[in-house]
């Protein structure tokens, strides 16, 4: 019910958004990024924060081509908590990866605010992943060599380089500790991932995703590997973040009950938004 209403809204606004972006198509990717970086207000003016237009993606397995996404159109507003549901193999994770610049679509475009991001050079995409998107995964993906604090600090280390990090390390550690405190892990700072429970690892991953103050949080089955209680705890955290900090969240899940807790749910069936 909620999905159909939002779809209608998206359609009406989508047209104008498309118009503005097409005007900028001819410009180079990095230039667009610069414009977008320089002009922070452009986010406020646009109707969506992240959008996919006619996105196609195939995977190759040997000689076979497996079409995963077959023309996906989707727009996510700023401050929205969107759930993408679908059966496994329907391409929802792939869509999330494309939005998070982890992969490039075969056809179609991905926009962040008014700027196309799927054709940006690798270095700009790396920066986007580091500064604009926060990613969390079903299997947490923490580095086993680092403790919880080290894992949370990792995006800061990547962002600031050796001396930049060393200069600000006190502030950074304070920030990381505050975030871990926020996800109720202040007692686990020095623990390695193997010493943490699934829920704790996912909370660490959320703290890591938030350390660079991203605009969008992309969550790939964040509860998929957790029991109901731990999963619910994660969803609570996400909801709180969405409510208190107006953080845009895109969550992929196959669990309808979890999806229902998002602001809006879209369904991905056979590579298309239903």
């Amino acid at each position, binding site marked *: 019910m909620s999905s159909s209403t939002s779809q209608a809204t998206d359609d009406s606004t989508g047209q104008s958004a498309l118009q503005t972006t097409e005007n900028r198509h001819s410009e180079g990717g990095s230039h667009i990024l610069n414009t977008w970086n320089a002009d922070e207000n452009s986010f406020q003016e646009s109707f969506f924060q992240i959008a996919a237009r006619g996105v196609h993606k195939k995977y190759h397995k040997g000689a076979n081509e497996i079409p995963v996404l077959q023309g996906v159109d989707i727009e996510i507003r700023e401050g929205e908590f969107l759930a993408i549901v679908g059966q496994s193999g329907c391409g929802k994770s792939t869509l999330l*990866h494309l939005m*998070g610049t*982890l*992969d490039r679509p075969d056809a179609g475009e991905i926009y962040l605010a008014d700027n196309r991001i799927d054709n940006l050079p*690798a*270095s700009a995409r*790396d*920066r*986007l*992943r*580091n*500064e604009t998107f926060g*990613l969390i*995964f079903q299997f947490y*993906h*923490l*580095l*086993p*060599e*680092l403790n919880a604090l*080290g894992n949370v600090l*990792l*995006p800061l*280390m*990547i*962002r*600031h*380089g*050796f001396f930049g*990090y*060393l200069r600000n390390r006190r502030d950074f550690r304070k920030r990381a500790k505050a975030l871990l405190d926020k996800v109720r892990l202040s007692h686990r700072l020095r623990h390695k991932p193997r010493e943490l429970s699934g829920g704790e690892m996912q909370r660490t991953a959320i703290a*890591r995703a938030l350390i660079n103050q991203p605009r969008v949080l992309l969550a790939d089955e964040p509860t998929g590997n957790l029991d109901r209680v731990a999963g619910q705890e994660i969803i609570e955290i996400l909801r709180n973040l969405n409510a208190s900090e107006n953080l845009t969240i895109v969550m992929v899940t196959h669990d309808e009950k979890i999806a229902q807790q998002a602001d809006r749910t879209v369904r991905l069936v056979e590579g298309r938004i239903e």
Partner: protein
Amino acid sequence: MYKLILCWRYLQTRYIALASVISVTLGVATLIVVNSVMSGFTHEMQHRIHGILSDLVFDGHGLEGFSDSRWHMDRIRKIAGDDIEAMTPTVHVPAMLNYRVGQRWVHRQVNFIGIDAKTYAQVSDCSNYLQHPENRMEPSFQLREGGYDLHDRELGDESPYRHGMEMAGWPHRRRLATEEKAWLAAQKKNRPKLTIPERVGRSDPFSGIDTPLRAAESEAGVEQRWGPLSKSQVFDKATQQETGVIIGYALAQVLGHEGDHYFLVLPGDDVKLTFPTAGTPPKAVSGSFTVVDFYQSKMSEYDSAFVFAPIKKLQEMRGMIDPTTGIANVNSIQIKLREGADLEAVRDKLRAAFPPEIYAISTWRDKQGPLLAAVQMETAILNILLFLIIAVAGFGILAIFFMIVVEKTKDIGILKSLGASGAGVMAIFLSYGLLLGSVGSGAGLILGLLFVRHIDSVRKGVEWLSGQPVFDPSIYYFQQIPTLVDPRMIVWVIAGAMAIAVIASVLPALRAARLHPVEALRYE
């Protein structure tokens, strides 16, 4: 920052990487040890050769030599000018050293060298190798009262004791004279009918063959000097010495059971030398000499062949002095150049001035050319072989790194999903390679230097374990394994090892950098 932290963590947690660290360590240590020993060997050998040979040797071909060394030296000084620091004429002849041990005579083939003790010490370091402290200060052919070294001067009191050296010198000679007198008296008492020549002949077969010696000498004064009587009859051994000779240490010394040194001949003993005269055909002459000191350069080739005597005496006995002019022939002129002079340039100047069919002019390096070149080639080949060892270690690093990259595929995906660039990921593995190289070569450096420092203990350990002598001083010129650590060599070895470690990590690092983040994250 994350690159450093991660490669440090990888070093701490991936024990398999220790295998490559160890291989680098062993390679570096081996290279350092081998190079230090080889350059120590070369350096010590050059030092010792140079101690005997002067910078330049000006040789006349043949045993007869060339006449008027003073004229030659003046001419040399005119040509080479300021580059000359000192010169001395010498006479070299092959000879037979004969001495009596108990009732038997021992004969040794030697290189008999006539030198002028004062000027010879200016052109070479040979006086440093003498066994009497005063002779080292000022070499002399006069027998000393005593005080010869009882142990090796360089090795100190722990080196083998030299039995008999405490008596060496005049005390030994006086004791010999007393014993000889007592023996003669006993012989006379028991067999009074024997004539004196017969009595002496039993103890000294050389007393009867002094004729060629007389023939070789100028006719004047032979009869007065030698007379009809045998020399030993008018010669008081207890107070007089024959012409002094300095003989090579190895010519006299033998090893005892305990490794101590015993001597067949001591300073104070008389020896006989037989050598050719200068005329054609050469005839053998023999002369009696008193050993006044030993010469020990620790180059066994020299220590077992060299016998030094005063040049005048040798020229006289060989008939090298022109009876009319009184000018003596010499075989060669030893030249010492001033510090920093170009050996080769001076040699070439002299070669241009003196006809090569009469004179051979060579530097000390030329003289030992084949030996030095052989050692140099050996060092070069060993270096190539040993660097191959490190290259093998490099392939080990390559294989292990590929393994680690595969194992860390998911982590690489995570780093990329957090915004790490391909170059950043590559840098992790390159710095990991550099770190392995540094740790490996650092450990190798310490191990190598420790090994070099305690190489003799190691040698003893190996000898004890294997029961076989590893380093035989009689074969390898030196009493101890010589080592010389050259800082430049160390820098090269370590730079080479690190370069190999980094180069070996380039391929795995490239692979890691090119991993697709999504595929890497999915990797199980």
